[in-house]
């Protein structure tokens, strides 16, 4: 859909599982800016069972805060007549548990993985990946399909002209399972077929009668090529037609919006892609919630998204403990604590998910757990965001010493330009330094990397907006959505004994200068605001590398932020914390003091 370039007033909502958030964007002079934000409880469940009630409540709050009349006869007035109403209204949604899918393909690391990428990129939660070589027996796969009740299934498999038999076998399993959709029993489960063209007819024979089968182009037509677009678009269409249309009030909401409703994470992904494209940068975005953590990345123009469905800070907090182990959490805690007590505190947060830390100790514990949740989610992302596996590469003599292979991760910390964090534990950390160091510790960025947080989580709405009006979306993103924390400078290398790691020689735009030499284990914070820069040279020492090679100086122009510049000489690959508990606690306290992380008040 295209809209006039000169629109003045934009209304956007995001219907989350608990809260519906509305934002109002207005053009002032040449710029689009966020005017106000309102919110109201989501009304998908009883007694309302109509999502538009919550939407109108949130919009009413926007009206009250902005003074602009938007509703007319209980409806959103579009287009605007200049003084009242809005020019466009758009929305995203993750209410009702979002979009839950099952995907399948022939080879786990090839077509099945491409199918998973397509589903994740479209904003789905992937409940399971069925592959011919997933090590399960056929009847186990059937049981799994029956048991999970997804919103839809994406069936792929076989490159064009490749295996027919294996693809049809998967179709037969789906047929035998007779899967029922999660919501509503009155319609057939949507199944998207995006596999080998030569198997189409046979797949149709199997599935046409028992499912709502949709056929699109093969998402992996050759081993060297992925074509995820058609499958993703079909997922969005079916999400609207089937899944959303089943949820209470969505038919009404669909009539109200000027563009299709998008799944929330799909919209965030679009925004991250737009930013990476517009600025030609590599970006990582993370949204850490109570139940799940989403990671988005764009490296070398390739977009990837992963959902760690069971890593989060409340509902899933005990699962962070289960996956990482107590020792990995304890290593970030700057005081000693009894393990049984720590475990009980963690599970108590799981069963009382809305509680907040009251004491500094509780806050430090929560932020220690957040580091591990973020780290694990990022690890999962790295292992998934890879170049295509199964690709035969012609090698010449120049490749002989090049160890890179197909299937290696695309995530390159050295080329990463920007990390954007969002979600309660990052956005609402009492001091911004806490958010910055949590992300540095979890992602271990290398070289020069900027960090930011999304203050009020409006990335979903801006994502949909980017499909209609890129300029408005990017302007609001930079001016109102992002809080620039600053820049992290971290040379790569490690040392057995403490020696010097880098020499910093920078002039600040305010006339000051930073001349410092940092040794292994040092962490230095220099406040510098976002509109100020620091230019000069940083020289890595003793075998450390800042991107130009070992010990080679790098000329930099660094941008500040609400926190400033962080020079991290704690080493990378590996990043080690001291072994003994006492030394570790003392190191953590030194870093936290240096970052001015917490109030010094004793409890």
């Amino acid at each position: 859909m295209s809209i006039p370039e000169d629109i003045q007033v934009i209304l956007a909502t995001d219907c989350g599982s608990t809260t519906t958030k509305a934002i109002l964007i207005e053009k002032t002079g040449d710029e689009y800016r966020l005017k106000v934000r309102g919110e109201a409880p989501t009304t998908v469940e009883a007694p309302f069972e109509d999502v538009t009630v919550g939407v109108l409540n949130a919009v009413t709050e926007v009206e009250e805060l902005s003074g602009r009349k938007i509703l007319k006869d209980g409806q959103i007035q579009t287009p605007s007549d200049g003084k009242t109403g809005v020019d466009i209204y758009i929305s995203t949604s993750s209410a009702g548990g979002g979009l839950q899918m099952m995907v399948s393909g022939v080879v786990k690391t090839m077509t099945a993985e491409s199918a998973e990428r397509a589903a994740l990129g479209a904003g789905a939660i992937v409940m399971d990946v069925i592959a011919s070589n997933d090590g399960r027996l056929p009847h186990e796969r059937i049981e799994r399909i029956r048991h999970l009740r997804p919103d839809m299934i994406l069936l792929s498999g076989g490159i064009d002209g490749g295996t027919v038999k294996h693809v049809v076998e998967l179709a037969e399993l789906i047929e035998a399972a007779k899967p029922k959709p999660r919501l509503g029993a009155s319609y057939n489960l949507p199944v998207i077929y995006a596999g080998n063209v030569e198997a189409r007819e046979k797949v149709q024979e199997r599935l046409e009668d028992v499912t709502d089968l949709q056929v699109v182009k093969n998402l992996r037509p050759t081993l060297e090529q992925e074509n995820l677009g058609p499958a993703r678009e079909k997922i969005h269409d079916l999400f609207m037609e089937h899944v959303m249309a089943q949820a209470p009030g969505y038919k009404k909401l669909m009539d109200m919006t000027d563009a299709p409703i998008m799944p929330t994470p799909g919209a965030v992904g679009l925004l991250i892609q737009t930013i990476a494209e517009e600025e030609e940068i590599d970006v990582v975005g993370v949204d850490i919630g109570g139940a799940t953590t989403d990671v988005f990345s764009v490296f070398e123009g390739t977009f990837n998204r992963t959902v760690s469905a069971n890593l989060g800070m409340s509902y899933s907090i005990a699962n962070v403990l289960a996956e990482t182990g107590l020792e990995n959490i304890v290593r970030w805690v700057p005081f000693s604590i009894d393990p049984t007590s720590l475990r009980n505190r963690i599970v108590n947060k799981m069963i009382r998910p809305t509680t907040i830390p009251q004491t500094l100790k509780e806050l430090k514990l929560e932020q220690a757990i957040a580091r591990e949740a973020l780290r694990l989610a990022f690890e999962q992302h790295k292992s998934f965001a890879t170049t295509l596996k199964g690709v035969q590469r012609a090698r010449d003599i120049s490749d002989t010493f090049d160890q890179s292979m197909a299937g290696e991760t695309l995530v390159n910390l050295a080329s990463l330009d920007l990390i954007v964090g969002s979600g309660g534990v990052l956005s609402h950390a009492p001091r911004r330094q806490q958010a910055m160091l949590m992300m540095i510790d979890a992602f271990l960025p290398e070289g020069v990397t900027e960090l930011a947080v999304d203050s009020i989580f409006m990335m979903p709405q801006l994502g949909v907006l980017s499909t209609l009006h890129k300029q408005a979306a990017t302007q609001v993103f930079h001016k109102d959505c992002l809080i620039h924390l600053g820049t992290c400078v971290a040379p790569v290398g490690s040392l057995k004994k403490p020696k010097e790691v880098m020499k910093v020689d920078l002039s600040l735009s305010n006339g000051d200068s930073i001349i410092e030499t940092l040794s292994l284990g040092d962490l230095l914070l220099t406040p510098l605001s976002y509109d100020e820069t620091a230019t000069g040279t940083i020289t890595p020492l003793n075998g450390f590398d800042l991107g130009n090679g070992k010990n080679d100086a790098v000329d930099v122009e660094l941008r500040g932020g609400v926190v400033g510049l962080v020079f991290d000489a704690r080493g990378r690959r590996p990043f080690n914390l001291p072994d003994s508990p006492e030394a570790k606690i003392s190191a953590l306290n030194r870093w936290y003091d240096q970052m001015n992380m917490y109030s010094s008040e004793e409890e």
Partner: protein
Amino acid sequence: MAHAYTPGLRVSPRTTLRKVRRLPLTGEVKVSVGDQVKAADIVARTELPGAVTPYNIVNTLGVVAEDAPHVMVKEIGEKVEADEVIAESSSFFGLFTSRAKAPVSGTLESVSEVTGQVIIRQPPTPLELKAYVDGKVVEVLEEEGVIVETHGAFIQGIFGIGGETNAEIVMAVDNPSETLDETKITSEMAGKAIVGGNMVTISGIKKAIDVGVKGIIVGGINDTDIKELLGYEIGVAITGSEDIEVTIVVTEGFGEIAMAERTFELLKQNVGNQASINGATQIRAGVIRPEVIVPMDVESDQKAVSEVVAGAMETGTKIRVIREPYFGKIGTVTDLPPKLEPLPTEAHVRILRAQLEDGEEVVLPRANVEIIEEA
């Protein structure tokens, strides 16, 4: 705003509850509106479709997939027994015959000429749904189940494991601060639901399972003990289908926390009564809490159904703290300032002031307390 909305767990000596009993698939409802049912009565039944067993006959018979339909000796829709021949092929002018036998008993559902896969569906398994509580059927959900209304005592727990069970209530400790360990459990407690105080130990749980206790209701439990009991960590709080022989309902939380006095007293009053207990917990959208229901015979009592009304928080409201550093303590709200105020963490949040039972005056984030629901 002087009010705040913080629903607590319900503890009520006398209430009316409606339990929705729903089959996982459509089936047949066995009772009618107005029927009196006992907890063990079957209210609905259905048949779960049998498991499906695929079997590729191509390799066994040494034929190509295209020929699969032609070598079948059983037809689609026909019943087959385990080890019965379902397909055979001859080679060398009938000299050698290969046979494919059914791996399980069931019905032959399909034969594929693309893959050579034969699908056999096993007989359906009957599933019977019990009433779970004593009460009256007040609504029939066509082909799906019923709603049973019951009157009685009702206690919501915070976390549980194990599914539905019915048992008589027995006290295993004398006061709510006493720990339930193996020394308190006797063989007379077989088949009973036992009540503990501030915590149940792992050896206590093991002894309870040994003697055949059906339910444990207790204030606290250690997370490490649950891990030891189940053999895995509880990652997310979705429970109820654990493979253990006892249902556990935890009323306060993890660690050593005395059971709320009122809860303890209510259970004590109901010693000797049959309780319906369920450990199933789900702390996501559509919260499910573990529960103890003690139905009472009050057929003549026609009190209106009491809805769950979340109390408004005001000065004088009784609250319980649900997070450190005052976790588990009970107090009374003395002030609800409308403005955000800073915590020691420097976060600015809505707070309340309260006087704890020991007289201490404290400041608490409103998010960290729950209202103690008065009966």
